[in-house]
């Protein structure tokens, strides 16, 4: 699976090379409080973070800890209550289009064919069609959906739908890909396979990826760096660098370093549930 055809491969500077990488996303004292009729509900305590260009960052945390809020603020869909988020030095106040988003469910439009779904960002942004059509075909080939271009989403399995939605998030060549529990709705086996594929896609496209998950093994498998968040209102409890070399294989799930890091992270949540 890892040695698949790689049509979009660029020069092979490994994505994990630690050459001085510039900061692409920067959050300073970012917090979010939702105003409701029952008063203010703090969702995210002020947090600081930096994400480097081409880095794969995974956020793990319990439900309702503001992970999705954080993601939406980075996409510019929600304004922070305080603090600011900068992308390449520009403060984000509204949707900025330099992101691709993948949600838990594929969110493909059922009235569009797979190919037209993938082309949606190109249509919305009125980018040159011919150029991006070639790119869309190449992306679909990369994720193994060649030949399914004219199928409707409901004719595809859940894993295939999610792959198509990853293509849609990449087609306009954004610098950042935001993924909100992208494989949460898939069965365990498909999920592992998708993890391997996502790792490959990220290495080939060298995108900056921010992925949210509940799954600790998924986090350790994919991440360069893991942000562990606390219960609501969310805050960053710890940051871990993943010491495993990339590309990673599923065999590494049994690697002592993998197991150790997984357990260290799991302790955060066990401690938290102990307080409840």
């Amino acid at each position, binding site marked *: 699976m890892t040695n698949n055809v790689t049509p979009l491969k660029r020069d092979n500077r490994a994505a994990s090379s630690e050459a001085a990488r510039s900061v692409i996303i920067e959050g300073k004292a970012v917090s979010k409080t939702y105003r409701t009729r029952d008063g203010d509900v703090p969702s995210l305590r002020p947090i600081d973070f930096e994400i480097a260009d081409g880095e794969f960052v995974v956020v793990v945390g319990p439900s309702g800890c503001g992970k999705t809020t954080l993601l*939406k603020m980075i*996409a*510019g*869909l929600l304004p922070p209550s305080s603090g600011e988020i900068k992308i390449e030095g520009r403060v984000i106040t509204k*949707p*900025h*289009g330099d*992101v691709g*988003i993948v*949600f838990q*469910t594929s*969110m493909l*439009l*059922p*009235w*569009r064919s797979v190919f037209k779904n993938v082309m*949606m*960002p190109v*249509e*919305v*942004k009125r980018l040159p069609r011919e150029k991006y059509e070639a790119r869309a075909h190449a992306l679909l080939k990369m994720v193994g959906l060649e030949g399914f271009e004219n199928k*409707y989403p*409901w004719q595809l399995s859940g894993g295939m739908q999610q792959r198509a939605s990853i293509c849609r998030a990449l087609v*306009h060549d954004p610098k950042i890909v935001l993924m909100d529990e992208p494989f949460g709705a898939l069965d365990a086996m498909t999920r592992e396979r998708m993890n391997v594929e996502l790792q490959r896609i990220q290495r080939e496209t060298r995108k900056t990826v921010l992925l949210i998950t509940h799954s600790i093994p998924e986090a350790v498998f994919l991440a360069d760096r893991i942000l562990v968040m606390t219960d609501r209102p969310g805050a960053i409890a710890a940051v871990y660098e993943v010491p495993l070399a990339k590309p990673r294989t599923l065999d590494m799930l049994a690697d002592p370093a993998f197991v150790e890091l997984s357990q260290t992270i799991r302790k955060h949540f066990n401690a938290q549930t102990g307080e409840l």
Partner: protein
Amino acid sequence: MADPKPGWQKLLQADWIKPLIFLVLLVVFWDLAIRLFRIPPYQVPKPADVIATLWADWPMLLAQAVPTTAATVQGFILSALFGIPMAMLIVGSRTVESYVYPLLVFSQSIPKIAIAPLFVVWFGFGMVPKVLAAFLLGFFPVVVSAVQGFKSVEPDMLDLARAMEANRLQIFHMVRLPHAMPAIFSGLKVSITLAVVGAVVGEFVGSNSGLGFVLQRSIGNFELPTMFAALVVLSLIGVILFWILDLIERFAIPWHASQRQDFIVAA
């Protein structure tokens, strides 16, 4: 392909034949009930008499069906032309929604049949009151189902479009409108059957043509077979118009036709 069943058995399985068989059964029961309970023909006519009248008066009934159908279709088209944009306004603006929507719902408790005579006072005999009555009955279901269709877009779907920097117009024609199409069509289907009722009501109160007029006249003259024959033609109009709409739906939203089962459950 390799179906071993004989032809007539396959025919029995066809979708269109089942309601037909049931209809024949009902007619048989109708006939039996008249014979068993000795119902006099001035209360309920015999099916055979109705069929005979249908046969004999067919040219007249067909001629009278024309104005009724015309009023129905015109009223229906008005419902769609006003109903869908009204739904867009309601969905697009909170102000419009808060001012108009409650009144619209309230207006539905006014019995439209009771105000139909008013249209005759305003517009005289003829086409206009019929079309208005058909429009009034058909309008509301279009608005309600279109509003529900436009509103039921998943928030994540909208976030996705917004994250692509789509403007409101793009979000509308790329996401909201196609998403609402199945709901709009189900509203239109309710609307067209109600428009038939509206047209007939219009003909009851102020017209000297159309099947509604035939109905009223035949009741007055105790020509029950004629009245029943008119009812049969009337329901045929409803069925045919519904069927045409169903056909248009299949062409307009082919992506949805195969998921219709899911939609019925969801609706």
